[in-house]
Structures are given as structure tokens and as C-alpha cells.
């Protein structure tokens, strides 16, 4: 992956930095590129791009690359970068913010499975008030396998089904699979929170489309 982090785009830099700082509440201006986060990054080896590069991309205003790279999707949110940072920047919060921004701006995720997973989890837990492992995994697998089928990758879909059935069977054997539906009686409140969150999301999207850029909602 080539990173054009040295190309400075003053116009997009201003809006991008403001949005990231406000939404992640991390002062990325404080970064002096010591790369301690990079040496600690759990997934740095897999992604080839580390938090320091990501912050450089934001500061120089490379919006497209900042929103569409492997780290934004593969970051496992272990927050090691943040505990090591001498300037107390929680870069894990920055990647989480970029992940949300990239979805708002309809960037196709580099690894769609990760997006499916988190969507399925949040929808599962807001539907019942509690997460039901079987149910949300079912939704996730439907999306995942559906993606293979749409692309005519029948072998991949088959492999995925076999893999998950094997995992399910071994979980069942160890009595770690539970079929009872877990719910919370007060899930109305949780559903209301979900509605509010979606409203905020739409407002944010509309704001960006109308050309006002990012405004706090």
C-alpha cells in the first residue's frame, strides 16, 4: 500500500482535523511522530499501516486515504497505542472515529465482514436488550454467506457454512451453546437509544451532503 502522507492538502486538512478531534476527543495536533504507538501496534504487522501514519494522513488532509485503509478496519481496539503515547493520544479512538466516518461517507469497507459483525452485534443487543450469541451470529453469517453467494463464490460460502457448523457443534458439545432467548424487560429504553443514535447519524450525513461540512449534533 502506498501512502501519500507527505502531500499536504491545506483545504481538506482543516475540516478533516476538526471533525476527527471533536468526535474522538483526541488532540492529534500533539502527535510528534515518535512512533511508540507503531512499535506497540498489535495489528501493525498485518495492516502495514500504523497509528502514526494514520495521524499524519489526517494532519496533511488526505481524506480518502485516511478513511479507506487497512488499519481503520483491522484495528482490534486494544488501545495499546494510547497507553504508550507520551502525549496521551488514544489513537484507538481515532481509528474508531474514522471507521464511523468512512461508513457515513459510504466508503466500501476493505473488510466488509468486520462491518457486518459490529452491525449484527449492535442490532442484536438493541433488539432484545441483551445479546444472544446464537441470534447475532446467525445474522452475521447470513450477511457473510450472502455476500459470497451474490458474487457467485459458492465454494467460499460452502466452506464458511461447514466452518461455522463445526464451531457450533464443538461449542454445543462443551455445553457452551445456549438456545434460550435472553432479553431485558426494559429494552424499550435501549431501543429508544438506538433510534436516537440513528437520528444523529442521518443528521450528520445530511449535513455533510448539504456542504456545511461537519457540525456537532
Amino acid at each position: 500500500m502506498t501512502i501519500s502522507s507527505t502531500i499536504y492538502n491545506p483545504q481538506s486538512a482543516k475540516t478533516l482535523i476538526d471533525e476527527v478531534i471533536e468526535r474522538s476527543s483526541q488532540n492529534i495536533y500533539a502527535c510528534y511522530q515518535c512512533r511508540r504507538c507503531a512499535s506497540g501496534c498489535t495489528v501493525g504487522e498485518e495492516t502495514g499501516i500504523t497509528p502514526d501514519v494514520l495521524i499524519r494522513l489526517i494532519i496533511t488532509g488526505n481524506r480518502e486515504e485516511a478513511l479507506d485503509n487497512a488499519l481503520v478496519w483491522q484495528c482490534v481496539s486494544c488501545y495499546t497505542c494510547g497507553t504508550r503515547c507520551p502525549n496521551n493520544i488514544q489513537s484507538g479512538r481515532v481509528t474508531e472515529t474514522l471507521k464511523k466516518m468512512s461508513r457515513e461517507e459510504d466508503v466500501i469497507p476493505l473488510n466488509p465482514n468486520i462491518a457486518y459483525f459490529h452491525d449484527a452485534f449492535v442490532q442484536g443487543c438493541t433488539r432484545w436488550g441483551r445479546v444472544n450469541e446464537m441470534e447475532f451470529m446467525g445474522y452475521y453469517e447470513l450477511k457473510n454467506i450472502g455476500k459470497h453467494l451474490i458474487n457467485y463464490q459458492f465454494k467460499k460460502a460452502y466452506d464458511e457454512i461447514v466452518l461455522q457448523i463445526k464451531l457450533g457443534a464443538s461449542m454445543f458439545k462443551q455445553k457452551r451453546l445456549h438456545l434460550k432467548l435472553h432479553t431485558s424487560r426494559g429494552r424499550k429504553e435501549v431501543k429508544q437509544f438506538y433510534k436516537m443514535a440513528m437520528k444523529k447519524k442521518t443528521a450528520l450525513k445530511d449535513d455533510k451532503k448539504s456542504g456545511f461540512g461537519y457540525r456537532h449534533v
Partner: protein
Amino acid sequence: MREVQMDVAYYPGCSLHQSSQFYDLQTRRIFSELGVSLKEIEDWSCCGATSAGKFNDFLAVALPARNLGIAEQAGFKEMLIPCSGCYSSHLMSQTRLRHNIPLLHEINGELAFKVTNTLKLVNILELFLEAKDNGRFESKIVKKLTGLKPACYYGCMTRFAYDVPVSDNVENPQGMETLLDMMGAESRDWSYKTACCGASAAINDPDTAFNLMGKIMKNAVKRGCNCIVTTCPMCQLNLDAYQEKFCNKAGIYERLPVYFITELMGIAMGISLQEMNADRHFIDVFGLVKELELV
């Protein structure tokens, strides 16, 4: 230090009611032996784990806030959260709500039990260490864990600070070592105690997750450990259920049992592994303790 016995609120979280139900059972059992009375809070809901944070900022704060409100309005001063993921998301929510008053009002507007920001969140190690300091734990030990060489694996979520002072060292925590050494085990120093196991990546990005778990395992084996001990149900499930796979991938021949700290404390207190439902592990946990004649 606690003079008078007080009730502690207890938030089990979704995984302790499902795939890691035996951890719930063990936690309740061990604390009742230690004389701490855990009261599960009424009608709790899911905290959103790390997924909510990746989905929407508001939701990530609002979901745990409901549980904070329930515990506070029931009059609890402290809440125990054994699952590291739940612990860190509640801690994050609480910190945000302390600093963002408009957000607190917005969320309280929807809640039947309002958040007052008076609750202290504790993880399982903090409470165990408190019991140790009070001398309640030492008197209960009937069996020394001689010969056990555990790799104490904290995972990334309990040491996660997020501007909140955590009780242990973030880079080199010692809580589990303190407890295990007191029980007579010889805990080994190792390099991956706060590394990340990949958590949900084991499902949605297995290549990455298996590489991470392979590194953890390799180091534990190299340091001469004969088991891994953890407090986090996600770490336990990952390192246990996928051990065959990631070890094959990383070329590791050894297999190590992955215990919950509650199981080892149970053995030391004379509770049998069967009583604690320890047969629910994927990698056998009975062989090692039998070999060392601990049971």
C-alpha cells in the same frame, strides 16, 4: 478497606449468561466463600461491548449508562464487572458522562433510573486483592498449587486506561501474580500479558486473530509455563476454542489449558473442578492438575 460487610452490585453481562456461564457460577461461588455478597442488578441490558463504539458514539455511552443508573438507584456504591469488555465499556461511559453534562441530561431524559455518577466500578481482580489484603483469602487456602507455572494473561481490556486511573500497572500488571504466588504457584514473567487476543476478529478476521494468539501462545510456551490464567471470558474462549487452529498455523506442538482465575482459586480453597463446571473447556483442564496432584 472494608470494615462492615457491604453488598456489592454485580453485572454479569451477556457472555456470563451464555457461552461462559461457568465463569458466572465460579465467580458467585468464590465470592460467597470469601464473604462478599454479590447482588445481580435488576433487569440489566447489554453494554454494547466494543461494537457499539464502532457503530455510533452516542450508543456507546448510552447503553452502559442504563446499567449504571440501575445500580446507583438501587443504592449500591460499588459494582463488580468480571467481564473485561463490559468493565471497560462501563468505565468509558462513566468517564464520558462525568465530563459531558449535556450528554448526561440527554441520556437521563430517556432513563427510568437516572445516572448520578456515584458508582465505583471494580473488576474481579480488585475485589480479590481486597479480600487478600483483609486476610479473608489466606485463611481459606487449604491446598497449595505447587508445580503450577501459570502465564497470567490480562488481555487488553482491564489495563485499558482511557484517562481513568486503573488500579494496576498498565504495562506490567501484577494482580494475578500476587494471588497465584500466594496460593503457592510459580507464576512466570512473560512478554504478552497485556497483548490482545483479537477478540471478535477470531470470527470476522480470523487470519489476523490467529496470528495474534499464536504469538501469545509461543511466548507462554517458551517461558516454560504449563497453563494460561485469565479473567476475561473473551480471551478464555478465544485461546481455548481456537487453540488447535492457531497452534497448527503457528507451528506450536504444545497445548496449554486456559483457566479462569476463579478455577485455580477454587482448587486452592478445596472446591472440586467438577463442582465448578470446569468440563466446559475445549482444551482439557483436568490432566494438568491431576498430574501435579492438586486434586
